[in-house]
């Protein structure tokens, strides 16, 4: 279990207000940017397989992560590496085969009844597809207020609900008059804002965003990213942010976790992971992402991976990246790679802010 480096989020300079934007204080919310505070979310050794009998697929293999209140963790990796499965585990929608999830010190999978209901409100999700995820026959107000039907005590009176819907609409940059419109009367970006307002209706501490802007039009994407970061500033919400767009992750995340075939292969501060990756896969991923530079310099610097992504039914022995790694040696096939940190790469890094990876031969410094 301990072979996977834990993802530790660090303190940020963001002041974390103890009140929501509406001025009401939110009891029980943690705004602990301090490095010694217990994390809001702690995932240890989470493993999840799918399938029957011997045809089993390993979607998550001993995943560890840690996230502090008010912070954003970016989750990146190739299609099928387990990002959405991990998101579903965090939301309690999928029970892991092994490992633990602790949210504010409690394992949600041990909760029942009222306690489970109370926990559910604290973790919410924003989905990729704003078209499919909203019921077309409900108005914006109904959609935003729907979670209160299950969680009746959050906003008890009809009058208060109406007021709160208006507040939430303006919080995500929609108009109060939009309350009575239906999803097909909204643009993609506006629908995604309804999805966000709905996630906020229960005052969550953590919002898991699974590709929240990928289905949006180019010129609309920035609007939604701005809403998300403003909410973090104003309400101190934490995010787990999944995206295949690395420039988006770089912009929103404090820390980044890189997954390959169900395993966390690298994590660290966003700047460290992007600018000085330790793991060859991270380096290849970063170098393959197209950048807005018409000079073509980036293309020359691109690391070209060989081979195809292995099947998750048949994960390579030793290091799972070895079939595509240009640095692979015999040892990589025989032994599971150890967790290494910047110091192992001959670089002291930042004390107290671990940047670690699983590799026998970690990269030393700047991206080639």
């Amino acid at each position, binding site marked *: 279990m301990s072979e996977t480096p834990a993802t530790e989020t660090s303190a940020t300079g*963001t002041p974390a207000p103890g009140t929501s934007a509406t001025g009401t204080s939110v009891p029980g919310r943690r705004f602990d940017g301090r490095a010694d505070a217990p994390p809001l979310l702690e995932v240890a050794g989470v493993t999840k397989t799918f399938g029957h009998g011997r045809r089993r697929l390993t979607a998550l293999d001993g995943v560890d992560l840690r996230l502090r209140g008010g912070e954003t963790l970016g989750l990146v990796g*190739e*299609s099928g590496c387990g990002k959405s499965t991990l998101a579903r585990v965090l939301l309690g929608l999928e029970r892991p085969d092994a490992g633990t999830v602790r949210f504010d010190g409690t394992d949600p999978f041990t909760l029942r009844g009222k306690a489970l209901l109370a926990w559910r409100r604290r973790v919410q999700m924003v989905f990729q597809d704003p078209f499919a995820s909203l019921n077309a026959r409900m108005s914006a107000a109904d959609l935003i207020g729907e979670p209160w039907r299950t969680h009746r005590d959050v906003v008890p009176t009809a009058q208060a609900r109406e007021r709160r819907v208006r507040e939430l609409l303006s919080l995500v940059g929609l108009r109060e008059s939009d309350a009575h419109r239906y999803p097909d009367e909204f*643009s*993609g*970006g*506006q629908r995604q804002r309804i999805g966000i307002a709905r996630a906020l209706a229960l005052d969550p501490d953590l919002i898991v965003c699974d590709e929240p802007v990928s289905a949006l*039009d*180019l*010129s*609309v*994407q*920035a*609007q939604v*990213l*701005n809403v998300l*970061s*403003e909410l973090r*500033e104003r309400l101190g919400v934490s995010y787990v942010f999944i995206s*295949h767009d*690395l*420039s*988006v992750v*770089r*912009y*929103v995340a*404090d820390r980044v976790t890189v997954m390959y075939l169900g395993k966390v292969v690298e994590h660290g501060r*966003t700047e460290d992971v992007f600018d000085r990756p330790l793991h060859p896969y991270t380096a*290849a*991923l970063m170098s*393959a*992402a*197209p*950048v*807005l*530079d*018409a000079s*073509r310099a*980036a*293309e020359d610097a*691109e690391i*070209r*991976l060989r081979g*195809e*992504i292995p099947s998750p039914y048949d994960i390579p022995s030793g290091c799972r990246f070895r079939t595509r790694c240009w640095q692979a040696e015999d040892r990589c096939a025989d032994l599971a790679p150890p967790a290494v940190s910047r110091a192992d790469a001959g670089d002291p890094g930042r004390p107290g802010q671990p940047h670690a990876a699983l590799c026998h031969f970690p990269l030393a410094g700047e991206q080639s």
Partner: protein
Amino acid sequence: MKPSPFDPDRPALDVEGLCVDLRTPSGTVRAVDGVSFGVHRGRTLALLGESGCGKSMTALSVVGLLDPVAEVTGGAVRVGGTDTLRLSRAERRKLAGPVLSIVFQDALTALNPVQPVGRQLGEPFRIHRGFSRRRAEEEAVRLMTRVGIPEPRLRARAYPHQFSGGMRQRLLIAMAVALDPDVLIADEPTTALDVTVQAQIMRLLRDLQTERDMAVVLITHDLAVVAQRADDVVVMYAGTVVENGTVREVFSHPRHPYTKGLLDSVPEDAVRGRPLPAVPGSPPDLSAVPSGCVFQDRCPLVRERCVRERPPLRSVGASRSAACHFSEELHRV
């Protein structure tokens, strides 16, 4: 087999004033409104624009594969000097493959699920060149080798679902270049793929283009892909061309407020915690495109003239144009 001798000064593909109308339950709407562009052999032109702006309609009109609800109502599509819109169906079909070819976004639906891929890849050779089945399959294996499919002879007998997304996209590209077309249109060829696979496919396209001296039209909504892979760019908005020119010029000094807004809102060099300069609003519905400038509802520079008068696409520098009354006022800071 090619319609006319190769003329280096004439674009391999020349689209002029293309208009496409769409019949919808609530009436006819114009999906493509006067789109023009030209591509020379050896060059890559990107058609850049947001979802629904008419990129695929433009491409489908060029290759003659439009849906029955859509109809070309004006313009010309010249390939080697011949206006293909004036050809009969049968004559046009002869151009598909040896002259004009297209790669679609969705490789799984573009391939026949119940036929081995080797058979499918050999098909163009049987139809256009009258090859025997055996000889056509030999050609298929050669193509599979060229696009980097391991063990091609064995894999030729496999079915599409037995390949990964990236491999399927390579098979489609192989099929599209089988007969050495002059013009290759790639409609979002990598949108569904991961960045590392995307880079691989883009490299393959580039290599094939150099090797065969093709003109390539690359359809995409990804600004970074345009920056890295295209020579020229046509920016589309609501069925119209709002700006064109070389990628270098357009991306460093956009002359249309929409292009500038797009470039500014990319989070690439944005500072975390600082808001991105977003373009307010969203693209218009095709049934409600404003009569003046198509971008007026979202434009920071809008004034009265923009509402009254649709700006024509006009020259704003050596070999570049923009459709904005006030494009001279734009300075990228």
